[in-house]
């Protein structure tokens, strides 16, 4: 990316981060950047929010080791 774009991206991220702080979402910069990227790629923001909500509490006790599956379809 060219530095201008990078700059813009950085600023956007900063702004988004500040907004998220105002809204008290508890997200840090890195997670937010990932989320923004995912949103940009067209993922449903509702499902992303659900992931953000569910995942930290979703801890399974001993589960059998399973193969990582590839997302390539």
């Amino acid at each position, binding site marked *: *990316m*060219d530095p*201008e*774009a*990078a*700059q*813009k*991206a950085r*600023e*956007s991220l900063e*702004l*988004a981060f*500040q*907004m*998220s*702080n*105002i*809204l*008290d*979402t*508890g*997200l*840090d910069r*890195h*997670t937010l950047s*990932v*989320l923004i*990227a*995912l*949103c*940009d*790629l*067209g*993922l*449903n*923001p*509702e*499902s*992303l*929010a*659900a*992931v*953000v*909500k*569910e*995942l*930290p*509490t*979703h*801890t*399974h006790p*001993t*589960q059998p*080791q*399973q193969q*990582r599956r*590839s*997302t*390539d*379809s």
Partner: protein
Amino acid sequence: MEEEDHQKVSDLIKELVLRLLSQNPTSDPQPTDPNSADFANSHRYAFRILSSRMTPSIAPDAAAIAESIKRRLATQGKSSEALTFADLYSKFASKTGPGSVNNKWAVLYLLKIIAHDKNSARTQLLDSSVLLPNLSDSRVSSRKQKGWENGVLLVSKDPENRREIAFREFVNFVKEENEVREEVLVRDVLYACQGIDGKYVKFDKTADGYVLSDLVKVPRATRIMVRKLCELGWLFRKVKGYISESMDRFPAEDVGTVGQAFCAALQDELSDYYKLLAVLEAQSMNPIPLVSEKVSSENYLSLRRLSVWFAEPMVKMRLMAVLVDKCKVLRGGAMAGAIHLHAQHGDPLVHEFMRRLLRRVCSPLFEMVRSWVLEGELEDIFAEFFVVGQPVKAESLWRDGYRLHAGMLPSFISQSLAQRILRTGKSINFLRVCCEDRGWADTATEAAAAAGTTTRRGGLGYGETDALESLVDEAAKRIDKHLLDVIHIQYKFKEHCLAIKRYLLLGQGDFVQYLMDIVGPELSEPANTISTFKLAGLLETAIRSSNAQYDDPDILDRLRVKMMPHGTGDRGWDVFSLEYDARVPLDTVFTESVMARYLKIFNFLWKLRRVEHGLIGAWKTMKPNCITSHSFTKLQQAVKLQLLSTLRRCQVLWVDMNHFVTNLQYYIMFEVLEVSWSNFLSEMEVAKDLDDLLAAHEKYLHSIVEKSLLGERSQTLCKSLFVLFDLILRFRSHADRLYEGIHELQARTMESSLPSRDKSKSRRQLGDKSSDPGSWIGEGRKALTQRAGEFLRNMGLDLDAIAKEYTSLLEGFISQLPVQQHVDLKFLLFRLDFTEFYTRMYQFVYNFLNLDGVAFF
């Protein structure tokens, strides 16, 4: 490209999961192993979620989302943050071109949802009643590592945390204020309305009411409402107190039947009230069945609902309390009357309630009336009835035995009805006691049947005053008729009245004549030498020799001689009187005072008769053929003239007096006695009960007394009349003397002219007569003439004196007659002076003598 995208997506997702897991504060502190099972799990889960919802549910409008976020911030009270956010958003939105975020709306929406989830997660952890959650202690410690305190910048000003303490106290205070719940208050109010102290609502003696203690924290509105509802409790307490007090006094026989009935009626009303309270208490536990399930329902009975339910009982209880206050000191008929006054109310609820109450309260009274009217029984232990009886002798039973007690007369029984009730019962008692008659019992049953009720108890009730009136009327009619029948037929009232008129009022002329002839000489003696026994014998003789002997022996039995109490110097004439003995039951009519008046009239009439009798006696001696003029031929002319003139004057005076006495007698006999008697007879015919009879007889007697000038206002007239009578009697004695003297003279002269063979006879006659030493026997003719002249002169002077006195007295009497206001004496005046002889003469005399004086005409 797609593959690239996919690869990017999965990488990003992996990254995201990693970050999120490492963020989780509850996970173990070591860094998450991307190859751990947990991670794989989470990864899979995340993927599943992400693939489930591919399309968003809202419109992709960044501005709208930004607006909504702003609004939410503002409503949460973070208005400055809202402004900042707006600022940031505008900057964010302005960034376009490469390197910027393309799906801005997605980002915003994402942030929004995350924030919302975070908020709802947080609020669920908090207590619902805490108002300032951000300052609770637990929160403060956990977020210390962040710079931000849940979005609020904490600037510590007070090192001792004074603010915190203050806020904590405020929180506690608010907690306490809501402590007393409404259901508890409702329960307390229900207890208070039964007179029991509740947990918070207690009876306060000083304030005299049920109060909610000041220490309890309730809102002011609730406090006021509780106080209003507790008024019912206060009223209840008052009523209950009265009832229990009365019941305590029952054994002391202080309360009376009406009071007992009143308590019973109140207790019935209270049992209705208890029923209502029981229902309300049961209801107070049930919640309201509501349609929607979301809102949690409270209990059915709130204070407001209670006030609606209590509206009607409050009215009734207030009424009862007012009545209780009124009736605390009353008893019997007065109590019934007071309650009746309160029943005059327009409100149908009140009216119905009072009617029920009064029906019960007045039933003992009506019972008493019924038994009094139909049986003459006075069952009144507690002195509640308005008829009171007192023990008296049989003869005053009618007049004084029973009377009305106005204090106990209830206001729904009118005065006239009460009089009728009194009279009916009195008649029954009179019949039973004085007349010894048993026939009235049938009349009672007849009366009851006619009135439509029975003679048993409980026939009548309050509100049926008409029924009571008709019963009383029927009973009164029959009993009165029965009583009058008994009085007239069995006891011959009319005959007795007639007998009294004939004997005491000297109606039986021949009897009176004989009596006077026989008793006359006896009565001239001083009073203390006369024996009643002898007079009684003379009375018998008189009766037997007149038409009175054919009268009913029962009546004649009752006629006796009575000598009034006399002082010295009284002659028999003054103290003699006749008496009629009227026994029970007629002595109700002929009481002592009545008989005393009869006596007075008798005395007057007797005196009049005596005067008349005296004049008639004088007339007998004045018969002209006793004095033949030829016997006086021997006398001198002057003496003869004198004799003649004296005789003439005597005769003239006699005629004058006779005229007066005859006319007075006629007036008394016919104008007064007979007229009053016929009036009395006609009134006796129409009299409906004994009271009417008594009144008629009273009127009869009164008219006689007034018209014969014996009343109080005719005192002066009466006195002058008696003086006239005395004068007339004096004249009689003078006339007697005159004629006696003339007879002697005649005998003297006859003796001297008689042949000698009769001289001895006449001398013997004279010898009988001449007992006095101053006789003329043996004197000469001249002496005789002189003597006669002197005698005649004296006599003449006496006669003149008498005549003058008589004239003046009569004039005085006659002049007073027309000015009497209270009694109509014009008939008497007319009789005495129908030619106006006297008035003209007096007028002439006075005018002639120029005397100013008595005004007449």
